């Protein structure tokens, strides 16, 4: 196979200067909380590195994750990513290529055996042998197992791939599972979110390419640089929470004054992501800044944790039937014991008279 060109050569060919690369790596190093020296090291390593072969598999998903990346506000980010990697296969973007695309995947797997990275968006259907989601006549389950076998590492992009997401929501008719439940013998990095933040993905890929190792991960295998803090801890509305100033409705005075959205169901305190710091659309805003509480989309099973507008301090369900049943059972027992006491008293009185 022809030697892959270096990222530096690719950038030069595209008219991207070394200065622009340095600015970009400084940005990535800063969002990943790396030391300042890492910026130069990243730029130098990236310039010399061969473009990483990437196979992108799209399973049970809505394409929001791909949209988030390819249509992000700043064109530089996705341009940079696609300059850093050689996207040899992308099921959604190459859909019209049909069998030629499938051949490209097999070729990339053969030529980069043990070196390619597999990016997955979407959960994997395993119900009834995985027949609920197929591509090119193969189930997602088959394609994932086949592609992951000789991969260097996998990146699960989005909550569906990372934790099962919406397809796994009750009653989970397709038997959807996250990638990590199928691939257990390779490193799997989860970049959750619905969709994930583009910078989180770009930063993770850049880290992999630059340092040739996995970034620090949390207990859910998410890069700590992006998932180390809760939304709540970094939220600009946090001082209102601490003061006990809450919006009660989306149109009340508290909402207009920008008070904390805890009472209208914000899940920021239990959600770990970089939305409150990196924000979206080039740092313009994020859901809470736009007046809506966090849905907790980067956490496992966020869809099944009760209503989005139920505050965290409430139960996930209002157990009306259970409360009613318990009250009735308690009342029945109370009445019965009182009646028995009356009976005993009556009998005692009768015996004393006789």
């Amino acid at each position, binding site marked *: 196979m022809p030697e892959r060109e270096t990222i530096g050569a690719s950038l030069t060919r595209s008219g991207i200067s070394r200065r622009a690369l340095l600015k970009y790596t400084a940005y990535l190093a800063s969002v990943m909380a790396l030391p300042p020296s890492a910026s130069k090291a990243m730029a130098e390593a990236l310039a010399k590195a061969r473009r990483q072969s990437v196979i992108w598999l799209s399973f049970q998903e809505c394409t929001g994750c791909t949209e988030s990346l390819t249509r992000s506000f700043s064109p530089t980010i996705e341009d940079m990513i696609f300059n850093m990697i050689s996207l040899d296969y992308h099921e959604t973007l190459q859909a019209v290529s049909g069998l030629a695309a499938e051949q490209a995947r097999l070729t990339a797997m053969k030529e980069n055996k043990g070196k390619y990275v597999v990016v997955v968006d979407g959960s994997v259907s395993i119900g009834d042998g995985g027949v609920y989601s197929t591509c090119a006549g193969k189930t997602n389950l088959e394609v994932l197992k086949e592609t992951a076998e000789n991969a260097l590492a996998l990146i699960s992009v989005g909550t569906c791939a990372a934790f099962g997401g919406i397809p796994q929501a009750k009653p989970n008719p397709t038997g959807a599972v996250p990638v990590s439940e199928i691939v257990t013998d390779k490193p799997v990095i989860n970049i959750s979110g619905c969709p994930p933040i583009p910078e989180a993905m770009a930063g993770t890929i850049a880290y992999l390419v630059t340092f040739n190792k996995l970034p620090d991960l949390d207990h859910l295998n998410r890069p700590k640089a992006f998932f180390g803090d809760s939304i709540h801890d970094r939220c600009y509305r946090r001082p209102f929470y601490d*003061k006990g*100033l809450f919006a009660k409705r989306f149109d009340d005075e508290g909402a207009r004054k920008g008070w904390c959205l805890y009472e209208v169901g914000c899940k920021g305190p239990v959600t770990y992501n970089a939305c409150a710091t990196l924000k979206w659309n080039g740092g313009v805003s994020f859901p809470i800044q736009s007046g809506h509480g966090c849905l907790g989309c980067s956490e496992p099973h966020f869809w099944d944790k009760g209503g989005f507008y139920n505050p965290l301090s409430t139960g996930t369900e*209002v157990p009306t039937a259970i409360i009613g049943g*318990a009250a009735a*059972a308690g009342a029945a027992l*109370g009445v019965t014991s*009182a009646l028995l006491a009356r009976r005993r008293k009556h009998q005692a009185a009768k015996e004393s008279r006789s």
Partner: protein
Amino acid sequence: MTLLDLARGPALEVAVAVFVFGVSWRLLSLLLLPWSHDKSIARAGAPPAFVGATRGFVRHLWPPKPFVRTFILVTLNGYVFHLGLVVIVFGLAQHILFLRGLFGVSWPNLPSGVIAVVSVITLASLIVALARRLTSPVLRLISTFDDYVSWFVTVLPVVTGLIAVSHLWAPYETLLAVHLLSVALLLIWFPFGKLMHGFLVFLTRSETGIFYSRRGAEI
């Protein structure tokens, strides 16, 4: 299922069910017991039962004169942690939301800082109550397992709640889960131990008031 899912879901449901079951059982089994008619002749000018009950209840809110000096600190300490608990349970926004989720009614909350200060005072007061129970020979003699468990399940939510709002030592979801589980423990114990006095105190003191007012005894 995470610890928080367990706490917000099944644990809370079971605890609320046990609480409702236990309270309705104990109240109904008590209220429907056969009542003995008071066959004594009422003192001339004895007030109606309702007035006697109210007087009895009010009179018990403060120790009688001869005992004021002895019991002033104990009485005040009792008020401090009882009122503190009321302020915490009904004043913190998150608690109001919890109650609104169960009963559908809500009211304005107090500032979080006020609740934090009240919580610390309440905790100190509860510790003083335990210290007295342990150091007073008479009180220690008449204390049972019920007294200590009731104290423990009351203190636990105050401590875990304070830690949760302070975001200390563990992620918030863990702290919130532990706090909710401690509340579940309190709800489960409530109907079966001395905490039931939250309901029964009104009955017992009123009954005593009726009994003595009918006989013209001053209490």
